């Protein structure tokens, strides 16, 4: 019964992309700083490929920042697809949509299992907010439609941003973690980390999830050995990938052009993040210090969130993907699109959110004003960098609102499950739960 709407969604989604690839929007999107970054721009890839085909190392210059394995993969794909390369990007988008549908299925099953396990602890008044199988079925369709028609996803696809490979790796890692497949999950996390470094954080929720499946208590020796195994397996895979790259490339030079480029942020082309503005404004001798501050900031949330959400590792994984998208050094709509597409998995916490209207407005305003202010700044010369940065800042703020709001809603629902969804009555007045 679900097959027809699912197929229809995929078909319309692909049709939309096919049509847009034919319009002049494709070229425009491929140049927009909000959509592609120096790390993911297809223009830079073509530069790298031609250098590679001329037997020059693309890592000698300052243009190309993809990893050696991706370089060879893209070269192969570029040769076999030729001018119909856009079909590859459409297919990759479709593949991610299918993987998301699988994630929704397994995640729904996992949620029901968890609910059945803990139901004895829940308040008797929490009946209304318990999950139903039907609602979870619909989620599978919503997540696919939400991905294929998300304007940010469409723009990323039309711009031929290579961030799509990164998103594919993260989605695969998530699916395999949910399936409990330790080796493959580790391998895909390693691939995601190999592509864009930051996803190495995902090893924490994956390790917790897999350990919880095997043992009951997090401090039991079984669990600890499982966690160790996950971490080691990921690190081994990552090392193997790097070593293969080294043997193919014949030198370690690529490390500086890829991870060095991500970590030391030498390219200050404006984008929707906050790095570029701070580092253009800053005095040279403070740069190193603030570089450490900014990069540690991207990683630091792993610790408190892992402690708070240790019983909900998949939500932890989602939070980390979202924070990565906000705080990474070269963020784009592609990263934002990925975690926005995952939100339907937690559809049941959305009634508890408070700011989604404001957040949606903020995101819309930013998406419209960013190109306008970019035009006024760069082409007309009548605005300046501060205008564009203001919009980038609002965009980041909106995302932070969204993430904290979702975290709040998630915790609020957990609280309600234990204490009942009706407010307590004290002195004849209903009380409120406030997060402070």
């Amino acid at each position: 019964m679900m097959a027809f709407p699912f197929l229809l969604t995929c078909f319309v989604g692909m049709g939309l992309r096919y049509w847009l690839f034919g319009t002049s929007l494709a070229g425009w999107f491929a140049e927009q700083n909000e959509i592609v970054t120096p790390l993911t721009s297809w223009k830079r890839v073509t530069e790298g490929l031609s250098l590679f085909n001329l037997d020059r190392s693309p890592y000698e210059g300052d243009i190309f920042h993809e990893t050696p394995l991706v370089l060879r993969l893209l070269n192969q794909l570029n040769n076999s697809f030729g001018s119909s390369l856009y079909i590859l990007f459409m297919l990759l988008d479709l593949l991610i949509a299918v993987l998301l549908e699988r994630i929704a299925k397994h995640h729904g099953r996992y949620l029901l299992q968890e609910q059945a396990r803990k139901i004895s602890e829940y308040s008797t008044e929490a009946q209304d907010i318990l999950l139903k199988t039907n609602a979870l079925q619909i989620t599978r369709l919503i997540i696919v439609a939400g991905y294929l028609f998300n304007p940010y996803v469409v723009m990323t696809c039309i711009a031929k941003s290579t961030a799509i490979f990164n998103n594919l790796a993260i989605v695969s890692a998530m699916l395999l973690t949910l399936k409990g497949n330790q080796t493959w999950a580790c391998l895909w996390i390693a691939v995601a980390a190999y592509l864009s470094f930051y996803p190495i954080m995902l090893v924490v929720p994956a390790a917790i999830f897999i350990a919880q499946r095997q043992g009951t208590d997090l401090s039991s020796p079984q669990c600890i050995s499982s966690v160790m195994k996950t971490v080691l397996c990921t690190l081994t895979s990552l090392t193997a990938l790097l070593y293969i790259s080294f043997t193919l490339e014949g030198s370690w030079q690529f490390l500086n052009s890829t991870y060095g480029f991500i970590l030391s942020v030498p390219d200050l082309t404006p984008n929707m993040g906050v790095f570029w503005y701070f580092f253009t404004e800053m005095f040279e001798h403070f740069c190193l210090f603030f570089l450490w501050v900014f990069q540690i900031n991207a990683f630091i949330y792993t610790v408190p969130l892992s402690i708070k959400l240790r019983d909900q590792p998949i939500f932890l994984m989602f939070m980390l993907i979202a924070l990565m998208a906000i705080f990474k050094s070269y963020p784009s709509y592609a990263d934002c699109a990925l975690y926005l597409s995952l939100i339907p998995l937690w559809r049941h916490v959305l009634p508890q959110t408070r700011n989604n209207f404001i957040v949606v407005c903020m995101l819309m305003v930013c998406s419209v004003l960013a190109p306008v202010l970019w035009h006024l700044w760069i082409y007309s010369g009548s605005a300046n960098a501060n205008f564009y940065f203001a919009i980038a800042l609002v965009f980041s703020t909106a995302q932070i609102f969204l993430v904290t709001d979702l975290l709040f809603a998630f915790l609020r629902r957990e609280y309600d499950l234990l204490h009942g969804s009706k407010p307590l009555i004290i002195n004849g007045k209903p009380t409120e739960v406030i997060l402070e």
Partner: protein
Amino acid sequence: MGLINNPTTRRKLVSFISRFNSPLCVICYVVGLLGFLALAYAPYNAKTYFSENALLPGWFSWAFNRIPAAWFESKFRSIGVDTHVQNFTFEYPEGLVKDQRFPGQNVYGILRAPRAASTEALVMTAPYRPLDSAEKTAGGIALMLSLANAFRKKTYWAKDIIFLVTEFDQLGMKAWLNAYHHCPTPYIHAGELTGRSGAIQAAINIEIAGDSISSFNIKSEGLNGQLPNLDLINTVVLLCHHGSITPTVHERADHLKPASQSGFIHSLQTMMLMMMTQASGSPSGNHGLFLPFHIEAVTIQGVKMKTGQRFSLNKIGDVVEGLFRSLNNLLERFHQSFFFYLLPATERYVSIGLYMPPFGVMALPLIIKVSDRGLLPLLPSLILSTFFGILSFNTTRFFVESAEAFHLSASDSILLGALAILIAAIAYPKLLKRKSPTSGADWRLMKCMGLLATALVLGALALMNISLAYFVAAVWTPVLVTAKPHGNRFAQLLQVVLLLAVSPLFLICVASFAYTLIFTKVASDPRQVMTQSLDLASKGFFSSVMDFHLFGNWTFALYSCAFVPIWALFWGLIWTPAF
């Protein structure tokens, strides 16, 4: 975070806004609308001042003193500047005149600066028009040639000066600029430039008909409502005063007592004229095409009155020479002063900081009336209204080609096509209704989406073209904010009339009507005015399509991709079941 996360303060704010919702909206709208107009009153706006001191306007003695003659482009060589000819061809977009390319030529001479390598340049340009055309430019060309001759003998130039005569007005200008900056466009095929100079810092376009003028009219509005740096206009105004020639904007000199009532009305009219020109998005002269390339430019137009004092070309030459001497002093690109302003008089300006608050207040009802609910039942209306936008954006070629069979002119066929799409948009709520009699589309939600979209579009537009945003906000805000499905038949009829009256196509016709009344002086017989404005409406719509393809004027794209879908959404809204 406190404000939006703390439920108590938030509830207070929300309940206040929802309680005084309607009076707030009315107050905001009226205050915004009138507040904006009040800015034309001299005490409420500011006197222009020089931000860029490097211009040093008027700090030199005058040297130009030659009698101009009707020399033409071949004279450049004899003057001794580096002379080149550029060939270009253009074709009509959207298959209007098939497989035919029209040739044109631009002639330019580069005076190489004796005091610097050719890294920076100034441009003096005059359009070449045939002698029998309505607005002649022969005087401007003559002036340019004699100025070139005079400039060449001076040693103080630190920037190259390019003297440029263009054919076919804006087409030639665009071809030259495209070639200079290597930006090819699909319909204008610009030939290679055989000689070039450095980065262009500023450009002055001269339009003078004969050998004497009574005042200098300054034209500032550029493509898509972009304006040149205010310092450039200040320079022109100041130098005009030096030469005791009256500077005007929109052919209106400053009022003697700007703070009086008649002074206010005078400046308000001037400001409105400027806003109308800016709102159209098309440049008011050749200078407008320089602005998108980040080159500050103005047109100075000689105006000849029947009575009053006349100035000879000698006097005019002094002003233009002074202008170039000032620009020659520039150390860096224009970056100080204002890029966003409105001019109620030549020496008064309303800056962005002054005009944005009233505009914001006027558009605020759009935000106040927004409320939030679930989204899914809206999809058909949203998709359809977007579809109408895409349709009107992409079908001009189709309409032109299919109209050939009926022997309709291209401009009429494009207008009729737009009308057809409007009628289709009018009919679509009926179609939706027939398919699903109890479709769950909540009109409040539709309205929320529509108002948000309107606020967003107007907000973004206000940053680029405040005049267009102001006019659209002025007519749309009250109608859209009050739009809702009525059970009462009379109220519904009123609503339909109102909404049709603010439909984008009708607004274009009204705008053309207003243009005819204000800018052409023949209007005396009302019937004549009607036919003329209808003609102008179709021509205006047609030329906005042409401008979009030839010069990159966004008015047409905005019309079809933003205004038509929003309007269609609201039209659908008033036909949804009221509950």
